[in-house]
């Protein structure tokens, strides 16, 4: 079960500065664990960000994105109280959706 994301959305003028932290191993499929076994490929492939229901960023990732990933973006035409929803899906079919409200800085 995936842990909740940490999403901050802070208003700067009419732009929401959105910062997303995700707990995810982003395994490359090349790493060996302590017992010497290969840890299987396991990484987020798709990440979408919506602003009041409208898609503003549609991201695709490879396993090269660092473990416990970070994504920062800037949403135009935002105001305090707006809803930012982030959804990710990984190659093993696991997914998670979390949301945040835009706050005045």
């Amino acid at each position: 079960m995936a842990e909740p994301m940490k999403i901050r959305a802070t208003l700067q003028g009419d732009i929401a500065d959105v910062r997303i932290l995700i707990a995810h191993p982003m395994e490359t499929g090349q790493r060996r664990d302590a017992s010497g076994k290969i840890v299987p490929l396991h990484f987020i492939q798709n990440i979408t960000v919506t602003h009041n229901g409208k898609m503003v960023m549609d991201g695709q990732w490879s396993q090269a994105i660092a473990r416990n990933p970070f994504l920062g973006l800037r949403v135009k035409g935002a105001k305090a109280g707006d809803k930012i929803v982030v959804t990710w899906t990984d190659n093993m079919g696991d997914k998670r959706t979390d949301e945040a409200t835009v706050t005045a800085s």
Partner: protein
Amino acid sequence: MPRSGGVITALAFAFLSSGTIAADPLAVGRQMLMEDNPGELWIDQGKKLFHNKRGPKNASLEQCNFGLGAGKLEGASVKLPRYFADTGKVQDLESRLLTCMEQLQGFQRNEVMKRAISRAGSNGSDIEALALYITSRSNGMKMNVTLDHPKEREMYKAGEYLFYRRSGQTDFACVQCHGESDKRIRLQDLVNMTDQKQIQEVVSTWPAYRGAHFVVRTMQWRLYDCFWQMRLPELKYESDTSIALTMYLHYQGNGAVMKVPGFKR
């Protein structure tokens, strides 16, 4: 942290217009990492571990006394290590946590201790998440370790002695790497722990997210890892040596404003 938003974008376009690059080739990366710290993902986990009923006694840690009374976390970690009358010992945050997990929740102290320092690339240990959560409750407060009890003074002096005690095949004490400013081991900046400002930067930023390990690390780990690098035997978790050094360092860093989790490369 949320207020720092946009610094990087601003930075990007500053480069664009001026065509210059920051003088320190490492600084840009460090700032970018610092602004959004994955360590924060562990705060909520620590909070759950603190409040949920767990262990053989099915109890939470809400009755744990970190020195300010049962369950009082705000301002507790900035007074640690300190002497606790119930155990008759000077304890740091982590050893106190072990005491509570043992007494309140019925966990086996040795079992918890074995897992306290997690493997790199793992999901981290309970102690790491708990230590971060509890310390984060003192964010914005000043480190304020006191030496009121004779045992606290003993610990402090022992810590100072150990900081300067050279041994092993590298002939290192702590001070060999942490006694001068602007020094590096390879590319890693070394903190001058004899300088008040620098030691304050240290004591206010642990527990910290360790970028190379992808987990939150604590002061116990920091000390353990130093002894490893010094080629000395393994420092026991919650040992008096570790608490004495923490006592010395925290006291030297008094006045530091807490801001955990830190981010270490």
